């Protein structure tokens, strides 16, 4: 199962992007999100695509990995495309099926929206592909530190997130085992109609949830036995040092976001 999951997996190619401070990468990703949201035209999309491609190539990770990262969301992209095609009724009509007409603007905005989604998912994979989970946690910890001002502990939040991420493959494995066990007793999900599948899902969710709670309890014992005390001071295994390169990395994203937003308004 783990081998099929690219989500959260780092691929070390030793590129300069791998060496960028995770805090810079996280900030860059937020700015990229701003840039991609502002994209409303094919020209702006092409501009952001060139920027994205340049960064993806500089990670020295094969582009097929980025495409694979976006693959699980293809149904969502198709859905976004269809909704835009149905909703936007501007420009010259292109095609008519019964009472429904496909307009040029609908097709265009559908294409842009779906590609924006694909680019966002693929590009943000740079963050997880080039950063080990531990460094990512530490980066997140650094970025979320200001939350202390409103009484939220960044340490606890990032520990929670890292444990949740760490257990995704374990729980998926367990789900598969339960599905197989149920199939062995004649309740094969694949063979059932959709309505029955929905009902069966409950009988799958209950044991998976119970098992997740049991795991959580054992994990707490393990953490306690290793001296973990909520809120107590801890040192950090990963050392983060901000360099000039990290500043330039963030600056490049600021320029992208500013350009994208400016193009949108102008």
């Amino acid at each position, binding site marked *: 199962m783990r081998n099929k999951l690219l989500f959260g997996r780092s691929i070390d190619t030793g590129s300069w992007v791998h060496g960028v401070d995770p805090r810079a990468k996280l900030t860059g990703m937020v700015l990229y999100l701003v840039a991609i949201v502002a994209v409303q035209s094919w020209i702006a999309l092409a501009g952001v695509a060139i920027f994205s491609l340049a960064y993806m190539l500089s990670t020295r990770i094969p582009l097929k990995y980025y495409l694979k990262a976006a693959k699980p969301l293809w149904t969502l992209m198709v859905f976004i495309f269809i909704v835009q095609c149905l909703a936007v009724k501007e420009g010259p009509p292109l095609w008519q099926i019964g009472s429904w007409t496909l307009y040029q603007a609908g097709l265009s905005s559908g294409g842009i929206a779906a590609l924006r989604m694909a680019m966002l998912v693929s590009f943000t994979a740079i963050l997880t592909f080039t950063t080990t989970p531990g460094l990512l946690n530490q980066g997140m910890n650094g970025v979320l530190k200001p939350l202390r001002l409103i009484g939220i502990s960044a340490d606890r939040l990032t520990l929670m997130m890292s444990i949740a*991420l760490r257990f995704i493959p374990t729980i998926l494995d367990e789900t598969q085992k339960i599905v197989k066990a149920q199939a062995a007793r004649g309740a094969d999900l694949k063979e059932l109609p959709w309505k029955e599948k929905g009902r069966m899902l409950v009988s799958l969710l209950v044991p998976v949830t119970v098992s997740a709670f049991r*795991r959580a309890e*054992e994990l707490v014992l*393990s953490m306690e*036995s*290793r001296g973990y*005390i909520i809120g107590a001071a801890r040192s950090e295994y990963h050392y983060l040092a901000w360099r000039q390169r990290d500043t330039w990395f963030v600056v490049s994203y600021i320029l992208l976001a500013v350009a994208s937003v400016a193009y949108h308004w102008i």
Partner: protein
Amino acid sequence: MSENGLAYELQRVSFAYHPDHPVLHEITLDIPSGSWVSLVGPNGCGKSTLAKLLGGLLAVNGGEIWVEGTRLDRDTVARLRPRIGMVFQNPDNQFIGATVEEDIAFGLEGRCLPREQMVERVKEYAEKMQIGHLLSKHPADLSGGQKQRVAVASILAMEPGIIIFDEASSMLDEKARGELLAILEEMQGSGNYTMVSITHDADEILASDRAIVLGGGSVVADLSPAELFEDGALLDSCRLIAPYRIRLKHAIRTRGLELPKELKLERG
């Protein structure tokens, strides 16, 4: 180490999760520093509960537990915990870090060790457990035996004096179980650790110095592993089967045959 040379002193220890259902009843026993004690008994007899009490993860309802001369209670548990390491049954559920090295470092971060010292210790104990080549691996990329090695390395890196193994080998395959046993024997040989193992594994019991049999929440017997495996009734009550070589020895003897003196069937 305490002045009396004891890692644990249990004085009339009782515990119940619910007042109507006591799990442990007035257990009194001593565990000398540097020894390896096996806690055995049928399922539900309170072995794991006793392990949690010894590890300070639960508080006694009655009686006292003394760890290396200090009474274990709410005020001292945080101070004593660094002296006690625990390895649990399911290696998956005790893997906290996203990678092997982060998992080993987790306990060290809690001790606020400087980074250089942490890196050194992670490397040292990973090498000792022969997982030095797996430091950047995610838990899902490891076998059960490798995960249990990581768990032991994580505990050893904190350099505790006492280590409790709560059925640490029960989810491992035969090969991994043998590897874990070899690690335990090496640790025992070093003389640096007091080990308490809760186990159903006959080889593990046989390798330890002493077997304490629990039944119905009390200590039923406190004897050497060899004596335990000679006592058929006690073995039955613990639902244990003697190792093959001991069964073979008995079978040969019951048939009136003598074993050659140079033929050694016991472990070690």
